[in-house]
């Protein structure tokens, strides 16, 4: 049974001060079962991140349905859930990782992971031990545990980012270019992490510009070309 079904999804952006509206994506269809891993490919600007951010409600979906089979709510349309329901799902069921670390300032690696667990109402003692487990698991150097992540290298940030998103064991994990700008060695590490998550039954949607790197891990690939081409002449609007 499908855990996530994206049906006829579309998203427009209106930039008022330029008086412009552009269709970022249109007619997106895909579905995936529990435990599956789908990779989204397509050229820059084709709308890959827009899809992921709309699933996570960082972007407001406008047409179509994003049907998610939730533990708590049963089948619901993420394009229409309330803000409070979405916050619940973010805390308990759906994780999002981008290539950028977007975290609170003045908070250490350890605190960030503990915070994620405390949000799920885990007792403080468990949060502490689980956070240490996660830091070890993702091979973050011990000297980084109580440091502020703004000084970390790209690979370190990313592993911390994935640790934060996965300690809560999300059922659905959204990955936006988690390997971009990493060296080969760090990429291999990230692939191992994804492999483990998949073995644990996590359902994954990922964007990879080098999808070959995910060979043998991805169950499906969704090519943005399979949807109608976005209006290119207006599509240049936000680049540069």
């Amino acid at each position, binding site marked *: 049974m499908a855990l996530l079904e994206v049906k006829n999804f579309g998203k427009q*952006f209106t930039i008022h001060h330029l008086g412009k509206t552009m269709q970022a994506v249109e007619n997106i269809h895909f579905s995936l079962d529990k435990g599956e891993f789908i990779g989204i490919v397509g050229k820059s600007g084709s709308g890959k991140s827009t899809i992921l951010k709309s699933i996570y409600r960082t972007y407001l979906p406008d047409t179509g349905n994003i049907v998610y089979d939730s533990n708590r709510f049963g089948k619901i349309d993420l394009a229409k859930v309330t*803000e409070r329901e979405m916050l619940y799902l973010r805390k308990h069921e759906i994780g999002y990782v981008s290539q950028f670390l977007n975290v609170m300032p003045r908070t250490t690696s350890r605190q960030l992971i503990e*915070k994620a667990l405390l949000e799920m109402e885990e007792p403080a003692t468990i949060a502490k031990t689980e956070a240490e487990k996660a830091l070890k698991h993702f091979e973050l150097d011990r000297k980084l545990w109580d440091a502020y992540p703004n000084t970390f290298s790209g690979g370190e940030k990313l592993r911390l980012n994935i640790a934060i998103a996965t300690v809560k064991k999300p059922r659905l994990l959204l990955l936006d270019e988690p390997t971009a700008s990493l060296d080969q060695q760090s990429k291999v590490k990230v692939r191992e992490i994804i492999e483990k998550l998949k073995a644990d039954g996590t359902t994954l949607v990922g964007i990879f510009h080098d999808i070959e790197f995910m060979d043998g891990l991805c169950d499906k690939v969704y090519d943005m070309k399979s949807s109608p081409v976005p209006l290119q002449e207006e599509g240049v609007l936000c680049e540069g």
Partner: protein
Amino acid sequence: MHEQPILCVRNLNKQFGGGCQDCRETSTRKLERNYCSTCGTVYACQDISLELFPGEILGIVGESGSGKSTMMQCLYFDEPVTSGDAYIHDVELEGQNVFNLSSQKKRYIRNHKYGMVYQNPVKGLKMNFSTMGNIAEKQIAAGNRNVTTMERTGSELLENVHIPLFRAKEEPRNFSGGMQQRVQIAKALSNNPPILFLDEVTTGLDLSVQANVLDLIKRIQRESGISMIVVSHDLAVIRMLADRTIVMLNGAIIEQGLTDQIMEDPQHAYTQRLVYSLL
């Protein structure tokens, strides 16, 4: 998800002035921002409806004059509303529009259910009382009589907001702006309120002091689960504190959503200008 909001506000209106033929009718009135140029009436809050859920921080953002402080002062009963309802989810108050209660009942709510941190510390603190005296005043209003426990809680609160205890006897007028805001926060928390209103708590403070106060608020929310409405014209403050955000313009709500959505995919022209720093 059938979750009860702890505070539910419906169609709050607040006007300064009696209105005239040109502006009395909501659907046809023509205002200059929030102001009727014929009679000078200010429509400071127009049909504000919102819900505050247990344990959340709700952010309110909007430019100067958009009605944020007026709304907070109406909620805290500093100003009477022109019309509108507010409900507090609580056994004693269930189903009653708190705006219509007697002034005695309103005082009870302020003393037991609400804490307020004002934009201007002069409004929230008695500058000629000692710091501890300021806190004790609120504790007494909330029905505390035992001096020893009041002092103990007072010291804990001051410690919590990093005011050294040896300064507890001093009057807050000797304190820096950041310290005064932290004393206000300690005072607002001293009756252990389920609902806390914070109006521009960091405005006018140095960046490092701001960070300090923001961390404090975040920590209080994490540790005590108090529900808060945080008002600021500063998006960075809202981004850091709030899960959900409401955008106000000229006294009305023009947009609301998850905070990251408001920041990354703002819908309204005004919100876009605010977020893209075009203002």
